[in-house]
């Protein structure tokens, strides 16, 4: 047995409040160098806020109240805005869901990429543009010299996301946070962007924290996956393990609701009854209790901790032993 690799990114007990409501509640996960960690969940489950909190980019209404965000041996949670600013783009970068809206429409693509490099390195304009040109080649944009002078409106969404990736990686950060990077793109472009991200992991050893609601994307690229529900991690596991042996009712139902091409459709896809509770409706127990088919009184009053289910596999459910019942209930 070899030693487990020391994590590059170690997030623990990350908690975010909005107006007194706990929208991210004690989220913990680690990411090893060169690993892709996916945070999966429905809209509003707190996955994007988790991402923003890691870089100190929370909207002004939200506040990080607890948690450590260890990047290497430095805790980003203790950083001042000034320190965070220096870390953003250099040590940890983020790309967003709407690549076209993430670029200033009035500034040339080249100047926006070069700015990201100059701010952290103090390089000259000419050097920064040369570096920007190289980055465009790296992210697979043909005819980089022409692209540098173009404006965002002249580029497609997929092209803009490549530009955003170039900006994010130009200073060689160790961690890239990708918040729904392919959601706004066409399916064929999605695949290209995912391939590009896989290539970057392989070439540079960049760790990726991928925020998504798409199980297909998770299966394609992630090494580990954390399933989030209503602000908490429901289950966290190596990706194959999670798909093969889901150990939380929510995960099991979620996987059953994903259409699959490799399995003949027997009947209707499974659905999860009800809707996600709002933070105001959160009870003292498990947040999934209101929709869970295995629910008991204990679930409603006592929050389940993350129980170990195997190597690197943990799940927050009081009734893991009854998980097989879920499969029996499926259509």
């Amino acid at each position, binding site marked *: 047995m070899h030693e487990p690799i020391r994590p590059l990114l170690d997030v623990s007990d990350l908690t975010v409040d909005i107006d007194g409501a706990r929208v991210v509640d004690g989220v913990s996960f680690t990411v090893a160098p060169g690993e892709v960690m996916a945070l999966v969940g429905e809209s509003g489950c707190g996955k994007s806020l988790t991402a923003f909190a890691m*870089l100190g*980019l929370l909207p002004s209404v939200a506040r990080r109240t607890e948690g450590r965000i260890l990047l290497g041996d430095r805790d980003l949670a203790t950083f001042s805005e000034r320190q965070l*600013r*220096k*870390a*953003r*783009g*250099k040590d940890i*970068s*983020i790309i*967003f869901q*709407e690549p076209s*809206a*993430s*670029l*200033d*429409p*009035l*500034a*040339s693509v080249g100047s926006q990429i070069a*700015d*990201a490099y100059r*701010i*952290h390195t103090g390089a000259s304009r000419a050097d920064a543009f040369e570096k920007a040109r190289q980055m465009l080649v790296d992210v697979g944009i043909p005819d980089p010299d022409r692209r540098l002078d173009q*404006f965002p*409106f*002249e580029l497609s969404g997929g092209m803009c996301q490549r530009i*955003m990736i170039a*900006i*994010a990686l130009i200073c060689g950060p160790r961690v890239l946070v990708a918040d729904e990077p392919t959601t706004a793109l066409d399916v064929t472009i999605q695949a290209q962007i995912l391939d590009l991200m896989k290539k970057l992991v392989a070439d540079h050893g960049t760790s990726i924290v991928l925020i998504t609601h798409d199980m297909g994307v998770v299966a394609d690229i992630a090494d580990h996956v954390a399933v989030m529900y209503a602000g908490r991690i429901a289950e966290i596991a190596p990706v194959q393990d999670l798909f093969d042996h889901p150990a939380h009712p929510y995960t099991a139902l979620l996987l059953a609701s994903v259409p699959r091409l490799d399995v003949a459709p027997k009947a209707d896809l499974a659905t999860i009854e009800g809707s996600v509770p709002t933070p105001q409706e959160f009870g003292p127990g498990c947040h999934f209790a209101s929709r869970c088919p295995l629910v008991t009184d204990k679930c409603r009053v006592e929050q389940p901790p993350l129980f170990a289910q195997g190597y690197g596999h943990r799940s927050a459910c009081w009734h893991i032993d009854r998980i097989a019942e879920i499969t029996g209930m499926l259509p």
Partner: protein
Amino acid sequence: MLRYVGERLLQAMIAIFGVLTIVFIVMHLSGDPTLLLVPQGASAEMIADLRRELGFDRPLWVQYVGYLNDLIHLDFGESVVQRVPAIDIVASRLPYTIQLAAGALTVAIGVGIPAGILMATRRGGWLDRVLTAVVVTGQSVPTFLSAILLIFVFAVTLGWLPASGIGGLSNLVMPSIALGALSMSTFARMTRISVADELSKDYVRAARARGLPMPKIIVRHVLRNASIPVISIAALEIGNLLAGAVIIETVFAWPGIGQLAIQSIQARDFLIVQVIVLLISFVYVITAVLADFIYAIVDPRIRLAR
């Protein structure tokens, strides 16, 4: 780009033609202008002579064609009172109004835009609240009242500034503030809305995410994007300032075209009024075209559109 410029110029020409026609119609709406010019108790013969001399006996469409023809040849007619070309009289007064408008615009832009930026970047803070109060005041106090208040405080009570008339720069201060106050409020409000709107956009968050400091993001990205609606307002406000000068010049005894307009209306010197109305209308049209050109400089989406 060339096509864009061409289109704007064509639109401007159509607008100017429209202005000329409306001014002609309004001038003749009140009936025969001859009656306004003759002294009381004039004989029918005198009236008929004057009417013939001024060409008001011709059919309306003939007058209209003649009017357009004169204007194309830059002949704006003679002042019926002073018997010198109307354009010369207006031109002699114009520099004063330009001075005043420039002063007012300096106040409006110089105070309004920085105030708007501060309000947007410190939204909800005490500075935002104080400036909002100033802006609302500037917007709600009528020009004639603020002018009189300024004179009362700074000329009569404190004696810091001359109460009226032309002279040095000190004479320009109060009329500029009085005239510029309303525009200042408009600039401040528009800038605040526009900057606040841009600050909430994704590209600002993305720029922060790559480590750019907020002041740099505001200067490099936000202000440029926010300037587009402000440019539209600036174009309108320049015309509004000329129109507002009518009141301010009267209050401050400022010998510009506003005061001239009032004097000419009282003297029924309608050709001078006509020149002033045309001039102000042209300024509106020209500034609108200029604004369109500035958009193209600022915004590549307009500049590079084919």
